[in-house]
């Protein structure tokens, strides 16, 4: 890790973050493509967006996460309107009777990483270098703010027609139920602000410097390719990651359950790993990697699949037979490893029998690399 901190978001930074966010999206979280184009468009119109670190915030500053909720497929077709991206902010300011000091992404993984950029540019307020997942997860309550008992309300939502919704939910689970139902009525994709927090709450509960992390991942993957270095090795070296497996996808099974894509993929080892077999279980995101029934990495630790040639991330939807991949793992934020964290996003929540064991420990037991 370097001591670099992102202070400004320009077009180049947006390109890097889009790639880094796809890696941190752990196979899900939606394609950052639309979010990237929205951000680029806003930066071309208003100039670079200022980025602030959590430690720069006043303790009583109002910080609001802004994201899109719904089906990425719908967002790729019914692209948000400009007004829709600032409306939830206006509604929350009206409800709380004060101005927003900074906007943050709720999740750094996948499509939502760059969604707040357009509102920050339009409103001329800075973007916060932090998020509440450190990766991507599928449900609203799967945020560090929920673990720390922070009130998710008021919650505001908007569609492209001009409809706005103000909600008070008793907790993140109820927010998830109600917001999901409203999203359907809004056409399957909506903008949302939840968990309005203070600067002090950000410092205590958010995962800091994750936009910088996404930026660095993207930069390494781009630059090492240009310098003809192995992008994946470079990335793992810089970011305390683990190479779990090198192999080829030989079987992929997907099914739809309760609106989520679930399934598993089987990989056979290649090159020096010939003879090994890895199974990867996913529910929108990759959640569990096993070999011979033993875990290699378990949610909430991050599991990403990278194309062996380009180093570029592969999503659960784009994974296909014959793909040559390197599976990599990163430790999640320590907050996810607490009892409440594991209850919220651990393997049992997603219906897997495997116990949670930190990736560092699993790798050490295997006498593993990195």
């Amino acid at each position: 890790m370097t001591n670099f901190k992102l202070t400004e978001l320009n077009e180049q930074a947006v390109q890097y973050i889009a790639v880094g966010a796809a890696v941190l999206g752990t196979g899900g979280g939606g394609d950052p493509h639309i979010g990237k184009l929205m951000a680029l468009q806003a930066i071309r119109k208003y100039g670079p967006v200022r980025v602030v670190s959590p430690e720069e915030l006043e303790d009583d500053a109002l910080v609001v996460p802004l994201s899109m909720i719904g089906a990425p497929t719908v967002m790729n077709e019914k692209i948000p309107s400009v007004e829709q991206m600032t409306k939830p902010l206006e509604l929350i300011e009206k409800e709380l009777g004060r101005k927003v000091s900074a906007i943050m992404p709720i999740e750094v993984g996948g499509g939502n990483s760059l969604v707040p950029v357009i509102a920050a540019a339009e409103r001329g307020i800075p973007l916060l270098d932090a998020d509440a997942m450190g990766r991507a997860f599928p449900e609203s309550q799967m945020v560090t703010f929920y673990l720390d008992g922070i009130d998710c309300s008021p919650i505001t939502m908007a569609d492209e027609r001009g409809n706005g919704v103000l909600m008070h939910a008793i907790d993140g689970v109820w927010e998830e139920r109600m917001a999901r139902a409203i999203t359907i009525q809004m056409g399957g994709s909506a903008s949302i602000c939840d968990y309005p927090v203070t600067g002090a709450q950000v410092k205590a509960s958010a995962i800091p410097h994750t936009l910088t992390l996404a930026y660095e991942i993207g930069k390494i993957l781009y630059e090492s390719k240009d310098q003809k270095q192995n992008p994946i090795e470079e990335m793992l070296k810089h970011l305390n990651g683990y190479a779990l497996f090198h192999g080829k996808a030989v079987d992929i099974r997907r099914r739809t359950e309760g609106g989520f894509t679930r399934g598993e993929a089987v990989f056979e080892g290649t090159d020096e790993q010939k003879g090994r077999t890895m199974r990867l279980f996913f529910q929108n995101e990759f959640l569990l990697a096993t070999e011979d029934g033993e875990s290699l990495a378990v949610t909430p630790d991050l599991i990403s699949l990278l194309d062996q040639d380009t180093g570029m991330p592969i999503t659960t939807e784009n994974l296909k037979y014959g793909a040559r991949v390197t599976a990599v793992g990163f430790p999640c934020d320590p907050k996810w490893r607490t009892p409440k964290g594991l209850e919220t996003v651990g393997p049992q929540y997603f219906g897997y029998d495997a116990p949670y064991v930190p990736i560092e420990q699993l790798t050490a037991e295997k006498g593993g690399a990195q």
Partner: protein
Amino acid sequence: MSLTNTKMMSSEEIYRIGIDVGGTNTDAALLDSKLHTIHTVKVHTTRDVNEGIVESIRRLIEESGVNPAQVRYAMLGTTHCTNAIVERKHLGKVGLIRIGAPATTSVPPLADWDETLKAAVGQHAYIVHGGYEYDGRTIVALNEAEIIGCLEVMKGEVSAVAICGVFSPVNTSQEKRIEELAKQVLGEDMPITLSHEIGSIGLLERENAALLNGALLNVIAGVVKGFEEALHGFGIDAGVYICQNDGTLMRSEYALRYPILTIACGPTNSIRGAAHLSGLNNALVVDIGGTTTDIGVLSQGFPRQSSAAVEIGGVRTNFRMPDILSIGIGGGTIVRVDAAEDRVTVGPDSVGYELLKRGRIFGGDTLTATDVAVKLGRYTWEGAKTEELDEAICQRADAIMTQDIEDAIDRMKTSAEPVDVILVGGGSILVRDKLEGVAQIVRPAHYDAANAIGAALGEVSGETERIYSLDEMTYDQAMEDAKRNAIEQAVLAGAVRETVQIVLSEDIPIAYLPGNALLVKVKAAGRL
């Protein structure tokens, strides 16, 4: 190249011509009604592409001795449209109406286009009110005055109009209504591309495809006219068909409206030709040319499609392109020896079309993959100068090339099971008869004209892509509906109904939508 005795054939026989125009060569093939290959020719692709086409037809007719009046079908696969986009030449100005507002305004049309292409295709792009939800509900109704206003501004400024609405693949009504308005304002003859006819879900990609399609109308008109005139010039009165990138054909009238569908048909033609020549339906097709080896997957007789977003001339589209892996090994690939370090390297550069001048066995000064193959006795070339070539070096170069090709084959396989490999292309002589992970290697007759033969085969297709809610119907009902739709599309495209078969059917559950939403894609194809 073979020449069958045509006098043996009945004068009632009906023939078809297939032509594949590539970057280096224009290949042509003559097939009979049983799809047997009668004759093939290869000529250099000329700067004026039509000259090469005329020359290939001339030689095909002359050398085969077939009566031109008996040629009833003529099929053309060409890189014209790809070249026009890449070189930004001959593109028409297109006016775009996106039916999106109030949604979609955060990413305007052409946002990801580079300036040169934007300048070539034009600056008339408007977002008007309208669009549908994923389930076909109207977001907002059209405002006809607003649309007519946009169309008025386009008068005299554009040569085509593209119309792309939010979720138009689910509900086509608004796009069709604006088409009517555009004809009223800009005249009945104004060519109009409706995005739902050429692309699938993904607004920007479909919009890009519709814009490029409009820009290519002049190009394809020139291609079709040139081809038809060439045929008439030789007394051929045939149905004219143009190859699509999915391995099927479209009638020339249809091609005149959907030129974008011709992009990247070359590799597809090779795969289809290889399938026909070998009689295999499932195999890997390894097409070795002068510069590259292209590996594709033959699945149920058609090329496996790539799942990645495809960029054409830097513009992201959502066409389904054949999934092709290219590596830098071909007949002209240069072999280098570093004596000091005792190292042999292969490629990736090639002497290309200069092989006959620069290759060592032809008296040139450059050691190439072809020299290696001839030295190792894989192919006999009369008068080849092989004596001075170092056999040990050739063995080492061959080992490297074999390893590279084996690795590439392995990458394209779908399982660890050995696969059948069909070898086509002029450079296929390079390859030894046994490869790791390969069950059998098939080297069909006419292997060096598989692309032109693929062009000539003549199946036409139709496809459909829709989101179904499995709360409202069963999985089987959804698939049945999609199949029925695809078959109708194939018949519309010219297929004989009795011969139409489903050639591709896939379903993808869509995350975060209620009612177990399922995206279904089905393609059907049948004989002409």
